[in-house]
């Protein structure tokens, strides 16, 4: 049974990482302005952003084209794949199980994220792909950097989407909620550990996340 991991611990050198998370948030804001799912990410190598991404599923009709993959494509256009091993990822929403596995296989050095993805997060939200036993080197994941902003971006997106619906729902359903629950220990399901009981004790970070 894998030990429970906490991804909301102290982030060493937080101010440094906030600088790059700010860039990821900016990507998400731009995505929101284009009616795209507001998830943004940047990959950073030696203090330099080498790849940026937003969700690409709608453009490709491919449900796997997440922001992380879009950014990786940009990186691989100019760098050898091995650069990932000295690269950190900053993403507004916790990487999903698929992305977490891909990142680990590519050898990512560390992942910093804003809010949890309690539907299919792979770094603590639902599973712990980053630290579970496996053949590839595990990676550390640090959550909670600009978490509130990451959540608000998603909420704004889903409120907007309701506006575009053919028959808009009553206004009370479209209200932008601003209260954000504090972080509670995520009830993570690891590979070996029994799945949690079907109660939702997770921090409800995301309305309908797209990882």
């Amino acid at each position: 049974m894998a030990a429970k991991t906490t991804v909301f611990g102290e982030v060493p050198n937080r101010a440094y990482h906030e600088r790059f998370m700010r860039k990821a948030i900016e990507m998400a804001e731009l995505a929101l302005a284009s009616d795209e799912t507001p998830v943004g990410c940047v990959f950073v190598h030696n203090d330099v952003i080498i790849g940026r991404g937003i969700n690409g599923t709608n453009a490709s009709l491919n449900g796997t084209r997440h922001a992380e993959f879009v950014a990786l494509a940009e990186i691989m256009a100019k760098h050898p794949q091995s650069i990932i091993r000295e690269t950190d990822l900053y993403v507004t929403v916790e990487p999903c199980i698929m992305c977490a596995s891909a990142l680990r296989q590519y050898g990512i050095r560390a992942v910093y994220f804003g809010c949890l993805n309690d539907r299919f997060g792979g770094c603590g939200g639902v599973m712990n792909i980053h630290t579970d036993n496996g053949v590839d080197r595990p990676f550390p994941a640090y959550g909670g950097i600009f978490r509130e902003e990451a959540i608000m971006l998603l909420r704004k997106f889903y409120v907007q989407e309701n506006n575009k619906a053919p028959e808009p729902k009553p206004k009370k359903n479209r209200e932008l909620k601003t209260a954000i629950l504090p972080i509670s220990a995520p009830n993570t399901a690891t590979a070996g550990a029994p799945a949690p009981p079907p109660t939702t004790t997770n921090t409800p970070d995301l309305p309908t996340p797209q990882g």
Partner: protein
Amino acid sequence: MDSPAFQTSRRMLALKTKEECRLGNETIQVWAVELPSKHAEGILKVIKDNVEGQDRIDLQHLRRFAKPKFLPKHILGERDRIKELHCVPRAWETSAPAVMQASCENAVWDWSTPAKARTTTRAQTLYLLICPTNVISMADLHSLLLDYTPFASSAESWAYPLVIKEVTVPLLSPTSPAQADEWSNKYWPTFYRKTNPFGAHPVSMSKAEDELQTSECNGFGVEHALELAEEVAQITKGEGLGVGTGCVIVERVEGKPEIIAVAGDARYKPLSVPAADEPHGCSPGNVMAHAAMRALGFVGRKRLRVASGQVSKAAAKAESNFANVGLAHDETARDGFFLDLPVNSFEQKYFDNDNIKPDGYLCLKLEVFLTHEPCMMCSMALVHSRVGRVIFKHRMPETGGLTAELVRNDTGPVGLGYGLCWRKELNWQFMCWEYIQQTHGESEADDTTAASTVSQYSKPPMANETIVESSFACIHV
């Protein structure tokens, strides 16, 4: 139809889900009591009226009343032996036994006439499953029942000794008739209700198995699809592009299968900036070029090609978002990274066929055939893509994402235990099977016999069937 000869012709074994592995053998302790059947309903009402929470745990899969002859011996226990000694006459067993009970506890039983042969005159008794033991204490239950007929200390109460037994029963519904039989013999009479709370509905599984194992449709059944996957795997490997894994995606329209995508692993196809210093052996290669990821990518590409004006427009608008956020897109580099376009003429042939139903959603309900159990990335990609059915041939115990088992049991080599095909925590589940190797005996001719009408779901492999473990050491595919 259900002949042994027929059963051996199956080629698929349903993968156990995480919950089936975890919960399948969980039990719970319950109270049970034997009572004359004519009082059974009355006592059940007493329980329902007086024991709060007696139905809090769903035990619908267990008979509430069970005849003694259907109970395992350990529940009947000592009672029957005593009865055979004719020492414990009970009113429902003999008509008017002339038996007197002495007043003090250690008194002996006495009777004036020999008991009659019980086999003919015996009145029916039943065992009542009362409730889980954590709902009420034995003492409270005992004193409750003593207030009611036939246990009340009325004139005939001596005839119905109140013995409450603690019995172990299965907590959850069985997922196959075989399991129900096993539990009935081991614990308590158990129903199989043709449902499966821990996986796909048995009827859906059975229907899927019939469709997939029938070769009549265009001569394209599960074995053909896997042969095709193996073929593309070997072609791509032969070109020096991959490790020899393959994936085929099929759309079934009114029972007729259409081959939508055929992709081989191409992780070693050089990227824009090749990794010169990394020999294949110690590099994971391009993770995006795993066979399953590529095949899913082909489907998206094909969908874009056959999309209606409206869908094309929406996709083009989404594509323009990349420019809006300042992402310059090198399309050649992007395609070279994702490899969601064919890398050889074999893949191209299937890719060029505009045979997908237009404007479908992602890979909703498509069938995916894989030479190898996909890694976690690919397994989750299948979840994101909303596929319907997945069949793989070689298990990947060190990297596979679909197998749920953690300990070696009746279905073969173990894996990491993720069981990603059916996780309640995730927002999509799909049916999944392993292809099983017939190790001896059956001729191929049997394959063309009629489709199975009997689900083989949940049955462990038989003696001549083998789950195929990959010869790859520990790579992700």
